[in-house]
């Protein structure tokens, strides 16, 4: 009897053991992970050390690409100014025109012809000064010999006399449209060819009129202005009219900038002359002008392809810190050289980051952006902030030295003439630095 009782209990044991926890588990509403208990900092501290280091060497230098493809520019750039460091910066634009139609009524009579250019809000340097635009008729087609893209260094001959010229004070923000009256002889010529049906397609038109160049005035020292490439904004317009029953009926044909043919018969010719002695040494893209040899400065100029090249040759010295650790954040702070910028020679809000190989050929654009931090501008503390965590991580895990480097250029570098001067790593007071956040999760016990 008594033994049986025990055996009954023993048989029940498993269910008791399982039920008991379940009853209590039901009361346990908060999972252990959902705790919000804040222990005082005296109660315990982190087992992990986090250090910020800004002594890693940043090797900056300046390189100049041989040329940039400017037939892919997103705008017409015309203007000229003299830069204290980069020399005389000049941009002219060359393009072919594309008639919207080739038919003119036989009764019509020529009125006038003009070029319309709409400012696209891009400008560089002083827009209070007067600029000149000279329009020339080209002697040759806007085409590279090998049918390739056109580069900023390209050039084509044009006729001596102006088709038209205009001096103006740019107001880029209000997006004015410029009207430049062109010579009637050009207008009459095209008018007749169309009316007489001598020109009925683009090929015939191009033989007759190869294109035009928009040149800045020889003596200009003002600004470089961007104009829209869009058909509805910038065009040559041929006006004519026909006699109606009571009054004359006006009509016109537009000739837009041809960016649809391939290769594009359009490009911006962007050149500099007489830059400072350091930049003069950059005659080949493989020459690296170390910041140490240029008063601890590096240079960037879009349009002509001057770029700042950045390497971290001693990045692995981070592992000299005792203990097991890993980087958690890497921010490059690039300091623009004091007095190298002002209200005219402005700093743009961002710079793009590219990768170059050991020959300084651009290989890819990285997703990083260097953003201008103006928070403490009033204290002359203004810098580009570039978060590079994953790039630095890659450098740290890469076994082999590849000679790859970062290159800074403005976004849209083939459509602008922005320039920047940045301090190197050795400036006594305002150096470019790499701020690494490094966490040590296992201290070496010695």
């Amino acid at each position: 009897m008594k033994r049986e009782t025990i055996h009954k209990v023993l048989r029940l044991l498993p269910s008791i053991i399982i039920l008991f926890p379940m009853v209590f588990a039901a009361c346990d509403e908060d999972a252990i992970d959902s705790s919000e208990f804040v222990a005082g900092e005296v109660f315990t501290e982190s087992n992990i050390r986090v250090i910020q280091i800004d002594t890693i060497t940043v090797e900056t230098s300046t390189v100049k690409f041989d040329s940039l493809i400017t037939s892919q520019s997103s705008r017409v750039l015309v203007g000229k100014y003299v830069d204290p460091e980069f020399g005389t910066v000049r941009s002219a634009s060359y393009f072919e025109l594309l008639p919207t139609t080739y038919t003119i009524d036989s009764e019509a009579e020529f009125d006038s012809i003009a070029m319309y250019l709409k400012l696209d809000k891009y400008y560089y340097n002083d827009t209070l000064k007067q600029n000149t635009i000279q329009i020339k008729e080209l002697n040759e087609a806007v085409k590279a010999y090998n049918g390739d893209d056109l580069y900023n260094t390209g050039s084509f001959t044009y006729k001596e006399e102006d088709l038209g010229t205009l001096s103006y004070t740019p107001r880029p923000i209000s997006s004015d449209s410029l009207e430049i009256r062109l010579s009637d002889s050009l207008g009459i010529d095209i008018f007749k060819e169309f009316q007489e049906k001598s020109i009925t397609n683009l090929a015939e038109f191009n033989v007759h009129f190869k294109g035009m160049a928009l040149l800045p005035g020889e003596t200009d020292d003002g600004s470089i202005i961007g104009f829209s490439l869009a058909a509805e904004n910038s065009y040559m317009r041929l006006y004519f009219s026909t006699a109606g029953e009571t009054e004359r009926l006006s009509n016109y044909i537009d000739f837009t900038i041809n960016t649809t043919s391939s290769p594009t018969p359009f490009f911006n010719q962007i050149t500099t002359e007489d830059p400072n002695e350091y930049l003069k040494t950059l005659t080949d893209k493989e020459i690296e002008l170390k910041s140490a040899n240029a008063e601890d400065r590096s240079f960037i100029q879009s349009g002509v392809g001057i770029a700042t090249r950045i390497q971290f040759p001693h990045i692995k010295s981070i592992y000299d810190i005792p203990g097991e650790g890993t980087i958690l954040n890497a921010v490059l702070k690039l300091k623009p050289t004091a007095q190298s910028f002002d209200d005219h020679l402005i700093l743009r809000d961002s710079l793009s980051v590219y990768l170059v190989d050991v020959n300084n050929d651009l290989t890819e654009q990285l997703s990083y952006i260097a953003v201008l931090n103006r928070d403490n501008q009033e204290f002359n503390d203004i810098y580009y902030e570039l978060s590079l965590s994953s790039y630095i991580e890659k450098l740290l895990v890469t076994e082999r030295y590849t000679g790859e480097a970062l290159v800074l250029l403005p976004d849209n570098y083939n459509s602008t003439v922005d320039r920047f001067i940045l301090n190197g790593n050795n400036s006594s007071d305002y150096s470019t630095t790499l701020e690494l956040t490094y966490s040590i999760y296992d201290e070496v016990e010695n």
Partner: protein
Amino acid sequence: MMKLKTKILLFISGLISISTFVRAQSEGLTSSPYSLYGLGVINQTSIGRSNGLGYTGIGLKTETEINNLNPANFALVPQNSFFYDIGVTSEYNNYSNAGTSEGRTSLNFSNFAFAFRITEGLGAGITMVPYSDVGYTLVGIQSNIEGTTEFFESNVAGVGGLSDLRLNLGYEIVDNLRLGLSTSFLFGSIEENEDFQITSSYFQSTETTNYRGIRLGFGLQYDLLENMTIGSTLQFPTVLEGTLERYATKNLDGVDIIVEDNTTADASSFTMPLEVGIGLSGTLYKSLTLSADYKKNYWGTTEQSENLGSYVDQDIYAFGLEYIRSRDSYKLSHRIRYRAGFNYDNGYLAIGNTRVNGFNLTTGIGIPLSTGTNSLLNLSYSYGSKGQIQNVLVKEDYHLLTLNLSLEDLWFRKRKIN
């Protein structure tokens, strides 16, 4: 003989299944912020009735159940008796500091034990009790980013604990003097997590430390009078060897990166102190049992330190009382045991020179399950408090329920009757 083997096999399989159960429950073993120190919160609960007696038992002489607090008592397992004990505990812990307060319920397997007699005057037992429990989650721990004036905030969490599988032998040297020997196999793992975010980067590390070690202990019980026993115990210091496995990940620019994957390293070993205890028990008027223990654990000499806490010598004073109306009554209600106890512990940890001391008030009841055996259903409730709020420490108030099935099986008796 076959039967004995089968039973032992059954027990071993039971042991295995219970340890699996423990592992499955490991999320909620304890919920004490103090468990982040050392090997966790050292388990006080024991086996059977001592949970209701303020955790006393060194000097408690018993022939009717397992007393795991002194191996010498195993000498008293009666002939043909086989004792089992299975226990579970549930704890509600409310912990608070100057700023916050939080309550948590946790559930725990507390022990599995059995004891049997080998020969006249020689008894043995195998017990498995949790040695320590780890279960904490603390958020917003601020630390300086070295080289700046800024801080980062990390969250830490720990889970795990150590088990103590103990083989006990008790031998009756002379009629009133018993000597015990115990061998503890201490094993278990503690997992610690820490994670934090700095700017847009996130870091998380998980360290799992596996500890194992053997600890020897002795016990003595001497009957001063027929109803008065004095006992003493000694646990030798030992070193638990630890191996560490680390897993660390981070997230940089939105990409998860494995920093370390199961790197195994030798963790620093953990030293267990010399522990001595002395206890006295006596029975008055056949129905009142008094028990008192004093234990001293020499943590100070282990010369270990935590990042903010240090180990100090620990004193534990405990007192317990049990009342039974009539041991031999046929009326079940007369054989119910009523218990009460008190336990004061000045703590083995000092944080910023403040000792983490605590006390427990216990009460319990033992309900007989049958008339012919000493099987009992032991229930106990304990209220305890630990630490204090002085902008440094965390104060804990906990309510602990234990349920022990302390069973006796009589073997070979049937055969004898036949």
